[in-house]
């Protein structure tokens, strides 16, 4: 857990004109972690990603990839990064293969065999010698992923990668990213305005609103500290009596006793109810989805 972060943002700020578009954003992504960058449209996800990959300058703050600053040692920093920023735009008058060759020539570590390997990895072998202008959006996404992972980057950055993918494609991408993180230790940074996708894909998410990070939280709870409390309802025969026992912490919801608990807490409460002679017919865990939490935090802000 004490592994050095692959990418570290420190108080990154972007001012365009008089508007502060990104305001002191700081976070880091560790090796093997899938990190979600979540926020409504216009919250600044793409702008932040552009700064990470050096397409835009920072007004203040700094970004390091490994030990190299994107500001001062750009080639050394960026060689460890693969990315798709917004849509995967390719040279339409070239074939898929020529597009990959183009980017492969710019990186000394990529062999012809490696190009072939990623083509098969993204499943484009049958169409790779077609001109990109004949590709569907899904195929362009695949080609985009291929160029991003060709040089085995330590950090993979994907900006809204599920746009234009069908549910099967999204699932495939999700599985691929998880495997990449687990097997190769790649740090993956994905942005999205779709909460449901992030929940399934990510270990942690940062929630961005109007250019500021308002929360960073674990999703998969592997961090120990993040054993999140959940709303648990107990279906009992004497709810009033039960509520009496847990005065202060308990509430009455739909005629059931409701409490905020972690896993161990559920067992403890159940034992106390039974000891008090109250029959428990059912225990329901109301997992608060990230979506609910997100809506709570960002208020009535529209999503998507």
């Amino acid at each position, binding site marked *: 857990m004490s592994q050095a972060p692959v990418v570290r943002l420190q108080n990154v700020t972007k001012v365009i004109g008089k508007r502060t578009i990104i305001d002191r954003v700081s976070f880091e992504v560790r090796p093997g972690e899938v990190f979600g960058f979540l926020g409504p449209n216009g919250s600044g996800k793409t702008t932040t990603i*552009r700064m990470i*990959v*050096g*397409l*835009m*300058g920072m007004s203040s703050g700094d970004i390091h990839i490994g030990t190299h600053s994107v500001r001062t040692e*750009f*080639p*050394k920093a*960026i*060689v460890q*990064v693969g*990315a*798709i*920023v*917004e*849509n*995967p*735009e*390719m*040279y*339409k*008058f*070239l074939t898929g293969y*020529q597009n990959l*060759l*183009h*980017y492969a*020539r*710019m*990186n*000394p570590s990529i062999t012809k065999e490696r190009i072939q390997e990623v083509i098969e990895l993204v499943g484009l072998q049958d169409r790779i010698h077609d001109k990109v202008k004949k590709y569907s959006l899904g195929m362009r996404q695949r080609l985009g992923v291929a*160029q991003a992972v060709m040089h085995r980057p330590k950090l993979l950055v994907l900006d809204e990668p599920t746009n234009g993918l069908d549910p099967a494609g999204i699932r495939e991408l999700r599985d691929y990213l998880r495997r990449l993180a687990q097997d190769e230790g790649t740090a993956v940074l994905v942005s999205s305005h779709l909460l449901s996708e992030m929940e399934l894909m990510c270990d942690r998410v940062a929630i961005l609103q109007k250019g500021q990070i308002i929360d960073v939280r674990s999703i998969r709870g592997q961090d120990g500290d993040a054993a999140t409390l959940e709303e648990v309802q107990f279906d009992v025969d004497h709810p009033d009596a039960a509520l009496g026992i847990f005065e202060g912490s308990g509430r009455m919801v739909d005629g059931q006793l409701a409490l905020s608990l972690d896993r161990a807490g559920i067992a403890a409460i159940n034992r106390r109810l039974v000891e008090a002679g109250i029959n428990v017919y059912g225990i329901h865990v109301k997992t608060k989805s990230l979506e609910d939490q997100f809506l709570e935090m960002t208020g009535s802000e529209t999503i998507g």
Partner: protein
Amino acid sequence: MANFMNLIQNENMKIYRRVRTWIMLGIIVFLPILISLGVLAASGTDAGSSWSMMIIESTISLMLITIFTAVVASETVAGEFTWGTIKLLLIRPWSRSAILLSKYISTLLFALALTVITFVITLLINMAVFGSSDGEQLSSVAGMSNMEYVLQFYLLQFVSLIIIITFGFMMSSAFRSSGLAIGLSIFLLFAGSIITGLLAMTDKPWVEYILFMHLDLTSYINNAQGPFQNHPMSLGFSLGVLAIYFVVFNLISWSVFRKRDIAA
């Protein structure tokens, strides 16, 4: 870091894998052939000497090459913005200067290729059609052979071409739309030479510092005073002025491109 030649190879691929480029090459190859054969059909082999035909065709082709290379130069950077590919191009272990340089060099190589093709085609077709006898002397300078004249003609034309490319290239880094960059470059080149032609009639001395006063360098071969009667200049002066424009255009291209935020 990897070999810089790879970047030039990439830029060449993006020039020569386009249908547009092959149309340009086709025109450059076949136009002189058609003109020579047309003259032959109309008036027989006595119509002209092969050298004067070569200069006529070269002048026409080089004018087209000026437009073609201005188009390619104007699009080389702006096109990447228009296509959105700039976002993938610039996230590689190369400085922006290196990428810009590779684009500049490949555009110059394209101009060089078209120019050499024109030289070879116009020479061969006219020798084949009108014979290789020396004919009348092209230059009014005593003792200058026709081959010498033609070589100087091409060299000076290529110098102008370099400046045109540098200008188009500057437009390309300055604008994010390739349509705008191409349109504006071509428009400014034409409007500039017309307006300068008018200005040259006045006797204001500052006129001699306008770019377009110095793009017709071939006039100096026969006339040491240059193309404008009432503004006598020298080849050295013209080259000096062009050198200043060359440096300024490149400074603008590089400083704009190196600093700009990529928000395509």
